[in-house]
Structures are given as structure tokens and as C-alpha cells.
């Protein structure tokens, strides 16, 4: 199996990936407006344009928002069908991910079911923020 396709952090996203490595899901928010949390990371508020933003540890909780089950696995993802999912985080943003710890079937993957982050270490630098059914 070829090695899994992994992210290459940039200066603007390094803090997010460092957080994943340390076991925390980090989001960003503006300290000047009420724009709320946003994702993916960028060094300014997408609502008001201010550069005064902060990174913080998010709850890691959300709900399963939408998904497809890929029946023709990408070679680096193994041989079994898997869900390409989007979770909606408690703090508002949506994020693409995979759902672990449950069968990859429509029956097991119910929209709006609570999920929580489960980091999957890939190498010394990268851990991917996957999600599992809450309380699993």
C-alpha cells in the first residue's frame, strides 16, 4: 500500500497541526469582532479582516454533518470502503474527516450523531484529526 497522502503544513497552518500532534484540536477566533470561530486556519478574521486573532483549544466535539462512502478506495487508504465525512463542530465550523470506531455503513453512520475527535498519529510530525462516535 502506498503511504497515506498527508498534509504539508504551511506557516499559516503550522499551529493547527502542532495542536493535533499534541492531542488538541485548535480553532481560531477574532478578538475584535463577534465573527465566531473559523476554519481552516488563516492569520486574519474572514468576517472583518482583522489580523488580531487567537488560536484556542476547541472542545473536539461535534455532529456528523454529511458524508459519502467511497466504494472504490484510494490505494493509500486500504481496500475497504470508507466514509469521507464532514463534521460540524460545536464551535460552528465544518471539517472534512474520517469516522473511526464504527462500521462504514449507512446504518452505523447516522447524520447528526454526536462525534468526538480521535487523533491518528501518522508520523512524528502529523497526526490527523479523525472523529469517532461520542463516548465510544
Amino acid at each position, binding site marked *: 500500500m502506498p503511504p497515506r497522502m498527508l498534509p*504539508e503544513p504551511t506557516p499559516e497552518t503550522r499551529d493547527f497541526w502542532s495542536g493535533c500532534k499534541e492531542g488538541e484540536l485548535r480553532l481560531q477566533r477574532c478578538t475584535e469582532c463577534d465573527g465566531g470561530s473559523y476554519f481552516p486556519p488563516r492569520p486574519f478574521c474572514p468576517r472583518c479582516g482583522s489580523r488580531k486573532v487567537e488560536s484556542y483549544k476547541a472542545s473536539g466535539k461535534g455532529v456528523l*454533518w*454529511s*458524508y*459519502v462512502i467511497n*466504494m472504490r478506495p484510494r490505494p493509500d487508504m486500504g481496500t475497504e470502503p470508507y466514509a*469521507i465525512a*464532514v463534521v460540524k463542530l460545536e464551535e460552528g465550523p465544518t471539517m*472534512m474527516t474520517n469516522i473511526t470506531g464504527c462500521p462504514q455503513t449507512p446504518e452505523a453512520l447516522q447524520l447528526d450523531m454526536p462525534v468526538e475527535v480521535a487523533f491518528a498519529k501518522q508520523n512524528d510530525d502529523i497526526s490527523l484529526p479523525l472523529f469517532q462516535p461520542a463516548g465510544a
Partner: protein
Amino acid sequence: MKQKSVAVVGAAETTKMGKIPDQSVIGLHADAALNALADCGLKPSDIDGVATAGISPVELAHYLGIKPTYADGTSVGGCSFMLHVRHAAAAINEGLANTILITHGESGRSRVGTGGFGRSAASLAGQFEMPYGPMGPPTMFTVPVLRYLKTYGLSAEDLAWVSVIQREWAAFNPRASFRDPLTVDDVLNADMIAWPFTKLMCCLVTDGGGALVLTSAERAKDFPQKPVYVLGTGESVETPMVSQMYDFTSSTAFRVSGKKAFDEAGIKHSDVDHLMIYDAFAHLPLYGLEDLGFCKPGEAAAFIRERNTAPAKDGKPAGKLPLNTNGGGLSYMHSGMYGMYALQESVRQLRGIAPAQVPDAKISIAHGVGGMFAASGTIIFSNEAP
């Protein structure tokens, strides 16, 4: 009202369509371009503006021996050609060029002279989507759909109806890749690609091309073909990542682009005789009908199922809003950037020469999507001088 003073005077697709292993990408561009030039009685040297996507306008211009005063390389996916029409209208009105050639060619199936389709691991999509296993449009464009279906109490059967009715249109089209009738069960029981999408809810992968020639409405009257006037135009872009759409049940780019085009054209929805909505997958006509304002949110599936967009069949009359009358990306052809073929079908309908001709069609809309809900372009055409 500047946009009203421009018209399509030349329009053609590649000589062959479907599987074309003996032509490269640039060859398909040129074939379509020469056909469109022949259609309006011009030579390459008569062209002073070029626009294309997929390849650079530099490649196109030099290949055809054109020395243009205007070049547009806007490349935002399959709707790029709608944006080229829009920009060409503005450019002609502003005097940047008089006669603009827009081309598309893609060896989607045979992959002759085709570049790669990679995304850098450092891009936003490379960091925040690719690690989770998406493999091309069938596993990305489709991601928002379960949320849409749940929001409106719909099911995969509602997606299947889109494929079934578009196949009815394809049956009229001798150049369509697939023409045999389909049932909802056929669609639901086809190979599962990315649940809930079966193969028959996904577009084809074919080779082909198309080209348009635009000039001022004033000059358009002197050309051999019936002019097709540009009445209103819109464009917008939304997100490079489908997971970051503002709303999974609606395309913001569709809404912005569609509203702009309707406002410019000054028409009502009931004025529209014919509609093309870029259908890379079966959910796109649903989003398109709703986001362009033809249906209320959640009502497009019933609108289609009740045959409002269908041809006449078994004694039932044709629907009031014929949609994707060439068979669409689902049945006619889909090379990768299908927007050009939606434009071509709008032009054919308004010239009165479409295989499935809508009687007395006067106003047609070609609405395109780029990327995976990344971008949008809308062109409203009329065959009556504005």
C-alpha cells in the same frame, strides 16, 4: 445594459464526440475553433480576442495563428466558459476586441496530451481534505448531499429521477453517448460509486470540445447564422473545498451568479423557455433549480419528478421548463469541463436547430458550476435583439 449589445455568431462542437483517441487536447480546441469559425464565415485572422481554460490562451492563440488584443485565461473549472462569455461581452463593449473566440477541448476519456490533476499537499485542500481519502469529483462533489436530502426529507430515489428524465432527452440526440431508456430501479441498482451515488447518478467521462465566436450585436446581423444575443450574465466563486461550503443545502455561488444574471437581463423566471444546468452529478439540477429561483428550497425534486422539466411522453405533454435537453453531462457527454456544451445547447435551441427542439424558444439560460461547488457562471441568451 451594456451586455445587451453582444451576440454569439459562431458556435460549434468538435467534429467527433465521445471517444476520440486520435486527437490531443490542443487538437480538440483547434477542431472546435475551426468549426465555429466556419459556422460564422471567419478565418483565424479575423479574431482579435481569445479565451480558454484548461490550456493557456497563449497556446490557443499561437496554435491558431491569432495575434489578439485581448486574452482571457480565467480558469475556475467547468463553468469557465460562462465567465469567458461574460468577460467577452464586457470587453467588446469596452472596445478591447471586436471578435472573440472562446474554445474548450478535453481528452477526458482518452487522455491524449492531457496534464495531471494533482493538488499540492501544502494547498488548503491538500491539507484539509485530501488526507481523508477523496478520489476525484465522485467522492467530493457528492459530500454535501446527505445533508440536503435529510433537510428536505428526500432520498436517493429523488436523485435517480434526475438521471431518468435526462435520459429521456438524450434519446432525441444522435450524438448522445447513452440513449437507451432508464428506470429509477436501473439507476438505484447500478454500481455503487460513493454511497448514496450510483454510477448512473454520475456524469460520463468522454472526449470532445466546443467553441463560440462573439461580436457586437450591431455586427451580428451581418453573419450567416441567426444571432443569439447575450441578455444577462453572472458569475461568482465560493470555496476551493467542498467541506467549507457556506451552506450544504445551497450553493452561494449559484445564488450570487444567478441573481446577477437575472437582474442584468431584466426578465422574470416565467419568461425562460429553456434551461441548462451543468449536471456533473444528479444533485446539481436540484441545487440549480432552487438556487436560481425556479423552485423553493427543497421543492426541485418534486418539480422534476412531476415532469416539469421532461419531454413529452406517453401522451403527457412536455414540461413547462425543458431542462438539459441535450441529455446533459449524465447522458450526452462530459469531458471534464462541461460548461461549453451547456452553452452550445442553449445556442442550438435559440437558433431552432436542436435535436430535441423546444418550440418557439426565445430565452435560454446556461448555468454552470466550476470545481466542486467552487465557482459558478450564468448566461441568459435571447434570439430577439434586445
